[in-house]
């Protein structure tokens, strides 16, 4: 009998591992003070095409802020608070426990409900019932994971957000959009010429990007709702580096129409371009600070590419980075406190962060060609492009550098990631 139990245990362990491998995300390192948590299978979830609890568990684990406890040997599975064996979970050193249930409704939809418990206090600290159809399993699971994450860490979860990136296969370029875990990828644009620099509008409904379909860089705004796209900066010379203002009404872009690469503001529909830098140097890679008051950018006006900050309405820029001879691609965290950028150090290009108040810096990655960083909207993770072998791939690192993930989407060259905003409702 004991042997049979052990066999079942092994089988379950294998099944669980298999389910996680499908996400193609490899996690190395772990955060400090991980919260030990058990996520039980939801009672009745076999009725769904995918397991909700597997996706919740994978989401929480990927964040690096939880230590997942083995939860495959609980029978019968509880679906109500009164059925939870808290003593057992205390022995397993759990701080938190997620249980849930799924029932089929009369109209072929489902109701999924989950409950989150504080195990030491033996109290329920969260619970929501969702009505969903068979296509909304992933969406629902991500929402549950977001709620668990926020309740236990105090930070907003990003499991329901999306990422955009460019896939190159042979001579074909595709702008793709996927869930934050890399699943459910869909193509928004396919082209025979390069696509680069995707940037999400603050409401997540539009992407600005640079396309070379006219043999030169032109900036487009692409609606993800209608699929309609519009060239918003197609002036003589090059048009590139789009960045959205916080209200989604304006873009900062880099144009060379008046000679040299300089930063301009234009309406999101391409209207009213006005120049905001005036140097004989390279001024590029604008990025709006979240308060909309200032713009960070890269300039070689001091002799080497460095990061500067200027008022969003123009004016004299102030230099922000001083160490090293190549500091580019500035991005600012949602709270405005942290700058991340790419620094060249002895021929290697790596992601660095700088606390703007204390001026404390940290190197977050150890690749050769790390580039195109993008903050998760909660500021806790940074998505970036790296190289594996001779191929581009995506990776993510926690803002403290402790948790690292590699996202291998498929057998292709993947680059230019951009993490989308929170979706509000």
């Amino acid at each position: 009998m004991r042997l049979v139990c052990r066999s079942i245990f092994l089988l379950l362990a294998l099944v669980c591992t298999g389910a996680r491998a499908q996400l193609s995300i490899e996690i190395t390192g772990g955060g400090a003070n991980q919260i030990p948590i058990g996520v039980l299978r939801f009672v009745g979830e076999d009725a769904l095409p995918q397991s909700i609890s597997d996706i919740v568990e994978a989401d929480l684990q990927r964040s690096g802020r939880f230590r997942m406890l083995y939860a495959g040997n609980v029978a019968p599975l509880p679906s109500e608070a009164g059925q939870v064996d808290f003593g057992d979970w205390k022995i397993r050193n759990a701080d938190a426990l997620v249980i849930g249930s799924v029932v089929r409704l009369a109209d072929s939809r489902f109701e999924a409900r989950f409950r989150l418990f504080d195990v030491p206090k033996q109290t329920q600290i969260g619970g929501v019932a969702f009505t969903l159809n068979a296509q909304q399993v992933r969406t629902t699971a991500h929402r549950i994971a977001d709620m668990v994450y926020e309740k236990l860490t105090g930070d907003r979860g990003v499991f329901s957000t999306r990422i955009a990136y460019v896939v190159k296969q042979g001579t074909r370029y595709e702008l793709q959009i996927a869930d934050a875990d890399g699943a459910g990828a869909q193509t928004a644009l396919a082209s025979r010429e390069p696509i680069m620099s995707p940037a999400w509008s603050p409401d997540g409904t539009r992407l600005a990007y640079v396309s070379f379909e006219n043999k030169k860089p032109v900036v487009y705004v692409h609606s993800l709702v209608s699929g309609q796209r519009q060239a918003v900066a197609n002036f003589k010379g090059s048009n590139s580096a789009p960045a959205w203002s916080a209200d989604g009404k304006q873009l900062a872009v880099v144009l060379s129409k008046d000679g040299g690469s300089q930063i301009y503001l234009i309406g999101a529909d391409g209207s009213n371009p006005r120049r905001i830098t005036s140097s004989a140097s390279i001024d590029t890679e604008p990025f709006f600070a979240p308060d909309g008051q200032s713009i960070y950018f890269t300039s070689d006006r001091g002799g080497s590419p460095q990061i500067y900050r200027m008022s969003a309405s123009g004016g004299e820029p102030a230099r922000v980075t001083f160490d090293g001879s190549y500091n580019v691609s500035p991005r600012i965290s949602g709270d405005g406190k942290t700058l991340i950028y790419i620094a060249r150090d002895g021929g290697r290009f790596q992601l660095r962060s700088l606390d703007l108040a204390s001026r404390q810096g940290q190197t977050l990655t150890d690749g050769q060609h790390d580039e195109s960083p993008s903050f998760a909207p909660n500021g806790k993770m940074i998505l970036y492009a790296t190289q594996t072998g001779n191929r581009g791939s995506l990776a993510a690192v926690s803002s403290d550098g402790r948790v690292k993930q590699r996202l291998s989407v498929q057998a292709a060259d993947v680059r230019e990631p951009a993490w989308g905003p929170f979706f509000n409702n």
Partner: protein
Amino acid sequence: MNKLLVVAAVAALLAGCASTPKDEPKAAVEDRTPTVTVPATPGVSTVTPVAPKPGQLPNALKDPNNILSKRSLFYDYDKYDVKDEYKPLLQAHARYLTQNRNAKMLIQGNCDERGSREYNIALGQKRSDGVKKMLLLMGAQESQIESVSLGEEKPRCTDSTEACYSQNRRSDMLYGGEY
């Protein structure tokens, strides 16, 4: 046995304090329907690049023995100044543009793969702008020339070696009909 009793006691206690939607006046479980702000299937746009308009290029531009058939200038790492060795080449093209006022030229600046893609767009633009500026000084007209950058996006050579990088740090001059 004692352990069982404890578990039973805890379970009873829990059952007592447990909040279920039915027992509580205020539901402990909120009802929500997940919504997706971005539709599950965004429209896919496929773009077909503009094909070059087939034009009859004058033989002078194609004849391998004519300097005008040479169209590329190469650069050192992170540099965009036109090397002296290319002055005769640019003089020949400036002369051609001066003598053929209807001729149009696109100059594409390129970079090796190292560094930021957007910074490389700007660096490639510096390279093509530099070539354009010289051609204008030598007599070509502003309306004849557009200088653009392809950054590191269209490498001629794709190995990560200096031999390859030096091929990719380049400006190319294309005449109307070739782009």
